[in-house]
């Protein structure tokens, strides 16, 4: 069972308090954009997800805690959380993720 750092509560909490909520940084198109999108483009947004081997940006929900959604970078091979951050922050760059990893490894 993971220990997950909630960026809102600012503490590590056990996984049972959380729910996984899919891939992060998939922005819902606004109404004008939606109208301009082809069915294929809309399907891409709706249904197609990356299946990353390695560092994956994903959404978690602190359902049995503060009730907030937030994002996380997690390695899908080692199952390690690298960093959690609030919704609204930009997708972290590879170099940013590397910095976080370096910091975690001391």
């Amino acid at each position, binding site marked *: 069972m993971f220990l997950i750092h909630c960026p809102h509560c600012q503490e590590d909490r056990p996984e049972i308090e959380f729910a996984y909520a899919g891939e992060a940084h998939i922005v819902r*198109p606004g*109404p004008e954009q*939606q109208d301009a999108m082809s*069915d294929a483009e809309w399907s891409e947004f709706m249904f197609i997800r990356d299946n990353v081997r390695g560092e994956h940006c994903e*959404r978690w929900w602190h*359902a049995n805690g503060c*009730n907030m959604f937030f994002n996380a970078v997690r390695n899908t091979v080692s199952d390690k959380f690298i960093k959690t951050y609030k*919704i609204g922050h930009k997708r972290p760059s590879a170099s940013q993720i590397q910095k976080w990893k370096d910091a975690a490894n001391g």
Partner: protein
Amino acid sequence: MGEYRKSGKGRVDHSEAVRFSFDGKSYEGLRGDTVASALMANGVHLLGRSFKYHRPRGAVGVGFEEPNALVTVRRGKGRMTPNLRATALEIYNGMEVTSQNRWPNLNFDIGAFNNTFSAFFPAGFYNKTFMWPKSFWDKVYEPFIRNMAGLGPAPTEPDPDVYASTYAHCDVLIVGAGPAGLAAAIAASKKDQRVVLVDENTELGGSLLGATGATIDGKPSEAWLAKTIKDLDKAQNVTVMTRTSAIGFYHDNFVALSERLTDHVPSLKPGQSREKLHRMRAGRVILAQGAIERPLVFNGNDRPGVMLASAAQTYINRYGVGVGKNIACFTAHDSAYQAVFDLADSNIRVAAIVDARKELAADILAQAQSRGIDVITNAVISKTGGKNRIKSIEVYSPDTGTKRQVNCDALLMSGGWTPSLHLWSHSKGSIKWDAATKVYLPDQANENCVCIGACNGDFGIKTALNAGSKAAGGRKSYKVEEADFGQGQIFDQLPNYIAPQKTKAFVDFQNDVTDKDIKLAVREGFKSIEHVKRYTTNGMATDQGKTSNLNALEIASKALGKDAPQVGLTTFRPPYTPTTFGAICGYRTDDLFEVTRKTPIDPWAESQGAVFEPVGIWRRAWYFPKPGEDMHAAVARECKATRDSLGIFDASTLGKIEVVGPDAAKFMNIMYTNPWSKLGVGACRYGLMLREDGYIYDDGVVGRLAEDRFHVTTTTGGAPRVYRHMEDYLQTEFPELEVWLTSTTEQWSVIALNGPNARKLIEPFVEGIDLSPESFPHMAVREGKICGVPTRLFRVSFSGELGFEVNVPAHFGKYVWETLFEAGQKYDITPYGTETMHVLRAEKGFIIVGQDTDGTVTPHDAGMSWIVSKKKKDFVGKRSLQRSDLVAEGRKHLIGLLTDDPNVVLEEGAQIVTDPNQPIPMDMLGHVTSSYWSEALGRSIAMALVRDGFNRMDEELYIPMPGGVNHKAKVVKPMFYDPKGERLNVL
């Protein structure tokens, strides 16, 4: 005292005899014995029959790694545990132990004919043989396999025991209390940290319990152990847990510890927990699991009396039991010599030591010779003799071709050592192949975790102690005098002059897998060890291949002509040792298995004899039968009473969400298909919610209480997911909206009153609300008081009758219900349950989300295009509704069905076709979603999802049923009763 017991020897209490029974016969052991040690003290080696061939088997090991000696313990009603390892099972007075997998008895077993015909039972036998004909599987093959192959019988009665569980935390968790673990605990105890030391055995000590004779810091190892245990006991920051198996190592140093509390005590106190599962989160984990000795794979290596050398050594040193009176040993590792010496020094005759290696260290040979032991090097055992216990071995020297028979009553074997990597591998620590010793060793850690001692490939007491101290931050260098652990050679195959088809050399004792099975799997094309494992079942028994995995790997890699690392290692999975379901369930059984939610009005319904049904995790009153009534009669009466006069229904389970804030209407516009901006304060509207993919997700009536406040209702089962769906969009897509969401499902009791007399009933009880139709029309909400308590009063109807939904704070629910019910007697008020509610709504064609829709139904499919706003720029699901597949012709539509025979109530879920005489498989148009007897119409009604249904009005369709009956039905609009809705406006 048994004739094989050595007086005064071992850690057992020679002054306290313990009586127990095995297969009905009474035996005497000593306090501290296991079932296996006590039986061996009495000369009993035959402990069970093997899984597939029913071969007689004895104990191979001395602890939890044991593959063979599985037994069943019975201790009264419901307390029967099969498949326990006799080698790790402490005896107590009155204990009843039975052997398994034999009939009629252990000494004479009919199933042993499997052994005679074993040539017909190779790897993959079941897969190949029990294939054809298919109809034989259920009735012939499966029962046969279940009877003949197997472990102990499963218990048939409920388990009366209590199983405790807890969460726990520590700074350092040490798994294994051998020299490495003990030294780590001592070092850790000196720091300011919480330390937990666990060991699955009865007492601490690990290998020190079995191998005596060393001195540590100038003391005999027993004395050092005793002092160390005392020191740890005194240390305030150390918790020592024995009889506790670390069964699984999960993410972030989360380790499951299963503690056995009562299996070793003679009498049970009521309510006492049998086991306790500790869910331990540790800052750091130190694994000191040790190593397990490897058997040698040779013809006849499974005869009772053949066991690991270290096991025999432990039986003599820990239990004071000689495993024989005239033993032999077959080894490829130096460590076995020490075991033989320990037995020899206890006056047990040693017939011979057979060493597969060509050369042997001179000092070991000298020690053997000084004891007068005959050592035969460069030789193997080609066969063993004896039926239910070994009587002889045949020693074969491949270089000279000479054979020699040696009599013995026990045979020690050693093929080297396998470090225990189980928990390390659970934690996803990587492993590396050590070519020199031909074992896998821990490599890179994936958690804050370290492996020390023998499980890290560091053998010997001194090495282990120093590694333990260092791992816990200590710097102690222990002074140890001990016999050199020595070295060994790994053999994938031992030479034999006997043709392979006439030999049987076991690799996995518990699953009866031989070297030939593994080679056969390779010949048949299995290249990965994971596939070899599944085909042969090697390592898949309850011992998870603790003694067999590396031998299997060695044989498979040799057969494949590859190095072992290229063939791989099978995955270790929790639990490390078999664990009871009780320990895993803990307190969550019976009533606590799944919590049942009940409404505040539930006790009233129960007192009225309601029949309940589960809806989501709620229990709801289904119907209220009067004496002599079945469900059909009760529902017909409830429906009629409601339509004729007045029905009362507990709707408290409806999901409720309070949507509040300056942007509440904007948010509602996004979440629902229909518009909300112009909904007046005090008005209600039915809302339909889609997922982003355009399919119906939920529905419910929403009341606007203020410009910035909506009282949203959801379906009973949908409340949590609708709330999550709303929170998700609010937080992640529309964070700029000033809206707050609160789940209020359990804050309100909801009493639905339906029927022409509904208004008359509540009028005298309502304060502050004008109930006249002009000021309180259908689909309106008002706040005021009812029966003296605050209410949100909705005028809504899910039945088509004049209806009110009385919302009161939850704890007033029962009071208001009882007050109204009492006053309603003059209107013959009738309580009804969910079944009547369903009938009444179906008569009106109202959908139930999840019954009439299934996650692939659009508003248009459900005949509800009217509720999808054409003007709104955006709502969840809008764009998807334009997808080509969702606007295509020929989708399934929700329609009504009227059967030709009005008395036929169709089965929900029944398939619908145009022509029942077409060949099978028929072209299925859809299925019946809702179907009831309508008392109001005096006939049956149904709703169905049917392909192109809107274009099939008045068409006749068929519903073929099993048994050849074809029901005929006509497609109609799903509105069966009062289509104009006049009954809503009864004055």
